[in-house]
């Protein structure tokens, strides 16, 4: 698949979603324009969770076949997922300040989002500490699978506390449509970035293999030709 071909339609879709969020969605009565954050926030929260599931599934596939191509999917999804989890916390915090007059409160869903973000951060830290690609893939996969098992238990544990996060608020049909458009377009952007980043990681891997296969004297010879005379 040529990712570049998809750039224009995905960019158009995201631009349409942002315009719809700003211009088409009706202004909410009590919160005003601050409520528009929700359209981005929900999309980011959804993608953070999807990203985590992709990391876990790709990790399991790596452990099954020991093919590094699966690990490239896992790393790409983890990087994008971390970004989405960070944006979920940031947009949620902005919304909470407008709605509840506080930047942060220990509501169950906020706690779940924070745990997801911390799990992503730990996963990326572990990967960053390892040089050998297979070792990095193997330990990363173990951590991701443990995380995937943990997420339902975290959700269950935190929901049993009383929460103040809106669960399924009644929405105007136009608002609902804009929300779906936002989720759909940002999912498209996520998939596109995932494909681009995965291809980049694969090329990095191929380059590293090539360097390992090149005899040392050839590499030195190549470096010498690059030096200014």
């Amino acid at each position, binding site marked *: 698949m040529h990712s570049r071909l998809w750039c224009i339609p995905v960019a158009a879709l995201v631009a349409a979603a942002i315009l719809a969020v700003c211009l088409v969605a009706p202004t909410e009565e009590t919160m005003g324009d601050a409520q528009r954050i929700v359209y981005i926030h929900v999309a980011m929260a959804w993608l953070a969770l999807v990203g985590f599931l992709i990391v876990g599934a790709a990790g399991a596939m790596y*452990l099954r076949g020991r093919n590094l191509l699966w690990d490239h999917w896992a790393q790409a999804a983890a990087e994008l997922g971390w970004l989405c989890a960070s944006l979920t916390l940031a947009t949620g915090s902005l919304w909470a300040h407008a709605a509840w007059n506080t930047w942060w409160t220990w509501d169950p869903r906020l*706690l779940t989002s924070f745990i997801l973000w*911390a799990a992503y951060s730990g996963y990326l830290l*572990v990967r960053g500490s390892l040089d050998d690609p297979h070792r990095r893939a193997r330990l990363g996969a173990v951590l991701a699978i*443990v995380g995937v098992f*943990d997420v339902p238990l975290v959700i269950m544990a*935190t929901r*049993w506390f009383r929460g103040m996060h809106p669960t399924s608020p009644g929405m105007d049909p136009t608002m609902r449509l804009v929300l779906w458009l936002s989720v759909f377009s940002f999912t498209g952007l996520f998939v596109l970035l995932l494909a681009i980043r995965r291809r980049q990681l694969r090329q990095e891997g191929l380059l590293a293999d090539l360097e390992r296969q090149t005899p040392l004297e050839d590499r030195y010879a190549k470096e010498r030709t690059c030096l200014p005379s």
Partner: protein
Amino acid sequence: MDYGARGAVGRHDKERYVTAKLWWMMHKDLASEWRARRVWPAMLLLGIVVALMFAVQMGLSPEQKQETVGSLLWLAIFFAGMLAMDRSFVAEREEGCWEGLLSYPVSPTAVYFAKLAVNAIALAAIQCVLIPLFVALSDVPLLERPWAMLAVAVLGNVGIAAIGTLLSGLAAGIRHGANLSVLLVLPLVIPVVLGAAEATRLGMEETLDAAWWRWCQLLGAFAVVFTTAGAVLFDFVVED
């Protein structure tokens, strides 16, 4: 010749063999700790200092103390327990015993179960000190229903030790991994800390209701899921 009966005896012997090896691995860890006293004193001291600091900070009414003591107790248990869980693998690697342990004629899963059992015993040792200390310092009825406290402690210990043992084993193989392990374990162990804290709080109320039982079920589910996951995944952790 009765091959079926011979097969049954063979299986029985194998089970006995694995159980004996499991016991010897646990015995090795407990005996070396008993002789050298390298981790447990520091772990117990950390637990006591945390408990004292909580008691100093808490200028609360008896009702408020009863509400918060469960969370403080389980956080103290977790942080002190992480010391023991970290060292259980780092010490093996530092002293060159790791390769020897892996070449022992048992599967890595048995090594995992032995380490898990020792770590759960370490957590129980902290609880034997911290629970009476919290009762004395904060004057809360933690031991009002000893069997309920015991059930929560056992389930919580197995849950924390299951995930802590797996991830400490993982972190021990990484450069500066000891600094990473608390960071890795803490977010994942939150359901246990929350569940155990809530079950401890509900265990002090006048009647044990369905909510207490629900939290115990969550703790039990966590312990089963992560003991199984640890047994399956530990093979991959110790591969090199």
